[in-house]
């Protein structure tokens, strides 16, 4: 009790102190001051395991842009340095709201990048709207967030629900023997449920027979019954839509009870899961927005950035969305040629931007609706991109031998 209250008091005091010592930023839109982005990162709190390396990466991003001279502003006839102000939102939406408010009024940043997570995507954008500051959010995926008519908000989640498994199903349609049946297993969570909700219908329309659709809560530890259902129904594809921690016992017990399938697909696969279940993950397929070695616009830049920030994309798969938000904002400012917020807003509106994952295209709601993912497979303990063939770093092994 005391501990929590103490921490709270300490946090408040620290916030108050920083607001006293940070100088106010100069006039918005000048040609002399740096271009300033403001962002919050969940460096502590419940999302911190997903994001704890991003603060350092964000600092490196600004450094790398500035090593190339900065952000090119035609209106000024020169490049201006990029400055990014970073706060820790502690994974708490209300903290994020007050920090963005503070960046608008005290730090007087030019533009917002971030935050992440749908829980923040609801309350934070109205702050941008109020101060008329364009904002490109990163890992904010829930579609309702984008249907509120907000005019200063964009988001580039990777991948988006309707495009998540497009390439995976494309790959499966080209395999022999062709898989005919599929079984969906879903963690009880809005994002994972949205994924299954979309793809179970889509799979049926693609000609698969959906043998089962099972929901499980994060608390569940004994999956014996579910695994036995898999053994009885014998699906060709087991499609798991779960974040990486809750599915750990599922994968382990599937192995322990010798589950068989032609392919086991874990739609949100990451290195964290791999660390926990080790060999049990062999042959499992997953999806990733981008991986070093995949060529595209800014791919050299991004490879260098994640190398400098020591981010393993397989362990931190949500990183690409973050980097894309930064890249899009830089491109939008360069396209506008000025730090004028209204001109940048016009550049963002229904814009198409470059990213190592390919073209990112915003619809009229500010949603990067075409973001997809590459299909990977764990082979000999390493993630290998197996689809699409143009960029694959290895060949898809099918049917997966370790699940026979």
């Amino acid at each position: 009790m005391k501990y929590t209250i103490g921490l709270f008091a300490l946090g408040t005091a620290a916030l108050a102190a920083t607001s006293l010592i940070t100088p106010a930023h100069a006039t918005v839109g000048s040609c002399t001051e740096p271009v300033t982005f403001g962002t919050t990162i969940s460096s502590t709190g419940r999302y911190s395991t997903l994001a704890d390396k991003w603060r350092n990466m964000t600092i490196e991003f600004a450094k790398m842009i500035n090593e190339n001279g900065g952000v090119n502003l035609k209106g000024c006839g020169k490049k201006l340095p990029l400055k990014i102000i970073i706060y820790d939102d502690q994974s708490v939406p209300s903290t994020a709201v007050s920090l963005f408010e503070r960046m608008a009024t005290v730090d007087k940043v030019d533009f917002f990048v971030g935050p992440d997570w749908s829980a923040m995507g609801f309350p934070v954008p109205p702050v941008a709207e109020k101060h008329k500051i364009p904002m490109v959010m990163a890992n904010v995926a829930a579609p309702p967030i984008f249907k509120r008519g907000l005019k200063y908000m964009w988001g580039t989640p990777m991948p988006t629900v309707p495009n998540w498994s497009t390439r995976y199903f494309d790959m499966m349609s080209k395999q022999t023997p062709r898989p005919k049946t599929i079984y969906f297993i879903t963690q009880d969570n809005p994002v994972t449920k949205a994924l299954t909700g979309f793809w179970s219908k889509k799979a049926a329309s693609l000609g698969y027979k959906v043998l089962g659709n099972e929901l499980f809560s994060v608390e569940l530890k004994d999956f014996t019954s579910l695994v036995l259902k898999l053994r009885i129904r014998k699906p060709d594809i087991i499609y798991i839509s779960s974040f990486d921690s809750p599915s750990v016992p599922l994968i382990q017990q599937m192995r322990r009870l010798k589950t068989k399938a032609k392919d086991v697909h874990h739609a949100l696969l990451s290195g964290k899961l791999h660390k926990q279940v080790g060999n049990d993950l062999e042959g499992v397929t997953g999806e990733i927005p981008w991986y070093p070695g995949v060529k595209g616009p800014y791919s050299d830049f991004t490879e260098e950035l994640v190398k400098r920030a020591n981010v393993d994309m397989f362990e931190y798969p949500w990183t690409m969305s973050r980097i894309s938000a930064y890249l899009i904002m830089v491109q939008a400012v360069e396209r506008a040629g000025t730090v004028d917020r209204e001109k940048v807003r016009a550049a963002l509106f229904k814009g198409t931007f470059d990213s190592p994952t390919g073209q990112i295209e915003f619809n009229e709601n500010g949603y990067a609706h075409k973001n997809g993912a590459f299909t990977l497979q764990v082979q000999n303990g390493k993630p290998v991109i197996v689809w699409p063939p143009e960029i694959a770093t290895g060949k898809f092994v099918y049917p997966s031998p370790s699940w026979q």
Partner: protein
Amino acid sequence: MDASIIIQIALGGILLGGLYAMVAFGLSLIYGVARILNFAHGTLLAVGGVAASAIFTATAWNPLLIMALLVPVLGLFGYVFYDKLLQPLTKRSHFEYTVGSVLVTVGALLILSDVAAWIAGPAPRNIPLRFEAMEFGDVIVSTTQAWILGGIIVFTIVLHFYIKKSWFGRAMRAVTQDHTGATICGVQADRVHALTFAFGSGIVAIAAVLYTMLFPVDPYMGFSLTVKAFTIIILGGIGNLVGALIAGIFLGLAEGFTSFFWATQWAPAISIVLLLVILVIFPQGFGWRKSK
């Protein structure tokens, strides 16, 4: 329905239920002796499991050795926890004692989870030790499961006789049944309280290692275990180990069969449903129940 499937589900349910029961043992002894609902009890399993996993990752020790290390450590924690934080409350009025003990144990739950997450990270972890699987027809039993099942059975029997025959076991039962009566016999109530906390926490250390060999643990999973253990005590009776084991296995089986015949998403909630149904249908409890 194929018998092998029923057997396989039953096996999983018995294992999980047996582990629930081990958590319930300590909770039940502690409540009986000190009349404190120790909300932090399940969290000790979570934290002990995280520690066991961390030790295993670092040293690859035999889980029995890890157990031998964790039992005294958690036991000492339980002793000090009672002696320093809860015992002082006994000098207060009954109301302040009740409310104070809830605040202290809930506070301990929060702090233990946070500290464990801070030291070892919030992500789930386990003891990734895999023994050969044995197959009996279509039923698959991993050697790990067989060992753990054997461990739970042996442990329950030993514990049962220890509580029945040893001086400390008798003292715990005596304090549970009549606190003043025990004092008159020369039992130092405060000491028995603290030792019961130590004893219950030590049992949790054993359960923690066994649990972590089967299922992942994370620092924040403890409270749902505490709730399950409360359910077991209500079904099985305070201070009644055999009742707790039966109730625990009953709960584990109920979760397994709910998941199989109905839907997986309902399995974790079944304990609450069962509790309500049973309280309504059998307000006096079951035959094996010897509540006090």
